[in-house]
């Protein structure tokens, strides 16, 4: 799951990046409003973590502008402003959740997962796709009720496809969700992960859309797979 962290305090940001990456998130960090606007023009993350007190801009106003421009990704406001009117203003400006500093890392992770889950139209953490059941928070994947071991990146990639619900994802989007904006990856790294996913979960799980990218295949049952 790819996150954009907008936080001006480097010490807080480094702790957040480290903590979130431990839970399988891919985090791109920017430290001011200008960088945040630039990042948002390049990609749309699965969720944003926004600090309101940026040195060159007001986070609340930026959020309001992004929402007016059609941003649908969930936004978690992370701030030291604890006044009731700040919290109300943050949520009314387009924030989906409001977490006060300091916070529990586990709670932050759970809130982020819940935000992304709701944005994908699901009310429970479990994702069911035919015989495939994925529980992202536990890192658990079951196919035909049998556990399947996936690497962290494979799980991230699978979650990206499941949350996209059949929408075609470009290679760049998939690479960003795996490695973030700042990391250069080998050109065939994505193909290797897709190959492994297909090998472990079935060829029909991920369809190739020639010249565009990939998308999640239709949900299949055991009988369908046997037939194929």
């Amino acid at each position, binding site marked *: 799951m790819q996150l954009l962290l907008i936080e001006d305090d480097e010490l807080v940001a480094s702790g957040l990046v480290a*903590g979130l990456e431990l839970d399988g998130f891919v985090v791109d960090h920017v430290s001011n409003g200008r960088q945040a606007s630039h990042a948002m023009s390049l990609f749309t993350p699965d969720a944003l973590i926004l600090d309101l007190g940026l040195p060159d801009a*007001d986070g609340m106003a930026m959020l309001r502008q992004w929402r007016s421009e059609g941003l649908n990704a969930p936004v978690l406001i992370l701030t030291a402003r604890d006044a009731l009117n700040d919290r109300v203003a943050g949520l009314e400006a387009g924030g989906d959740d409001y977490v006060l500093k*300091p916070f529990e890392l586990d709670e932050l992770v759970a809130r982020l997962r819940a935000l992304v889950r709701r944005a994908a139209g699901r009310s429970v953490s479990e994702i069911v796709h035919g015989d495939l059941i994925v529980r992202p928070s536990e890192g658990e994947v079951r196919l035909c009720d049998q556990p399947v071991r996936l690497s962290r990146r494979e799980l991230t990639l699978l979650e990206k496809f499941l949350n996209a619900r059949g929408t075609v994802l470009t290679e760049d989007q998939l690479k960003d969700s795996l490695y973030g904006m700042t990391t250069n990856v080998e050109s065939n790294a994505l193909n290797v992960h897709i190959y492994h996913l297909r090998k472990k979960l079935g060829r029909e799980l991920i369809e190739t859309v020639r010249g565009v990218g990939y998308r999640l295949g239709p949900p299949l049952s055991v009988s369908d797979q046997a037939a194929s």
Partner: protein
Amino acid sequence: MSLQRRLLLLLGSSFVLLWLSAAGLLYVDLDRQVSETLDHRLAASATMVAGLIARQPELLTAPADNPLLVEPESEGVACQIRSAGGQVLLQTSGAKNLLTNKASTGFDTRTIGETQWRLFTLNHEGVLITTADRMTERSSLQNGIIIVMVVPFALAFVGSLLALWLGVRQGLSPLKRLFRALDSRKPANLEPVNIGDAPAELKPVVETLNNLFVRVDRAVRREQRFASNAAHEFRTPLTAIKTHLQVAQKVQGEPQQQALINAECGVGRLQRVTEQLLMLARLEQGSEWPGAAESRVDQVIAEATTDLPQATRLKVEPGTENPVMAVPQVLAGVAVRNLIENALKYSASDRPVELRAFRGSEHVTFVIRDHGHNDQASERAQINDVTGSSEIRGHGLGLTIVETIVSRFSGSLDVQPNAAGGQDWILEFPVEG
């Protein structure tokens, strides 16, 4: 007691006193005038009888054993005509008892039997003509006059009191509106009071009150801003410490060591925020600052720039002179350092921050210049438009401390936008002596 009740009591009692005094005086005067009028009537009656006798002297030749003039006569003016020798020549029936030995003329009041009379005796060519009124008849006439006088007086009196009550009530209504407006306010409500069209006497009160509300509102907002900034400055390093400690619990080896180092860094920042707050508390106590009350510019600059994070971005122009300022070195150093740190924090990390110091006629001026975030001032303006605010923001505790030091040591602090798209912070302290 309410103002309205007090006014009504005071004015009402004054009204009662005045009206009663006026009524008393009027009654006494009227009583006197009625008595005089009745006396005049007696005298006129006697004169009229004398005129009749003069024209018709045969009237006095009536038999002496039956001198009745009018039969019967129970009220009104009684009349008796006597000869100089005291013989009753003529009389009304009611005057039978008026016989008097006195030959005096003029007015007299006498009780004859059980009846009190008012008499007037006229000597007409040796004949004594006496006319008389019963005092009971006079009293009933006077009582009638009092009743006629009392009714309009009472009506006017009650009407006056009613008009007084209405007038006071109407006159005090702006005051009542002000009372209701203030009485129904919640303690946190600092909106201006509006009582509509206030009278001239009340306008200064309402204006003063509203000005006070504005000042209190500003003070509350300033305190809230300070509390919010202080909370931010405390929570941020606390968040860093807590996050890195949580990460350290989940990892091993070098990442764990790095997380602990970061947490320690957060502790250092937290310590600094605490020290700044303590310094602010000491400054606001107003007690004498320990140590020398003067400092040199070069020492202040050295104090402000020692161990400064991102020190490579700072360019210092200390000036050719090295004047002495009337401010303790440690405080001047803290003020300059806080402004430098703010400038470093709130401008792009690849841009320099400049510190210049120079001496004026009475002040030493420090100018801390940052170059903003964007390449052009127009871009900065765009960001300000986006934020909906062009005010200086986010300078937290550090700026509050600078302002407190400046105010305590007769200095000044100003901020101006510069051509580079950043801000110039201008700090001045008075020259010693």
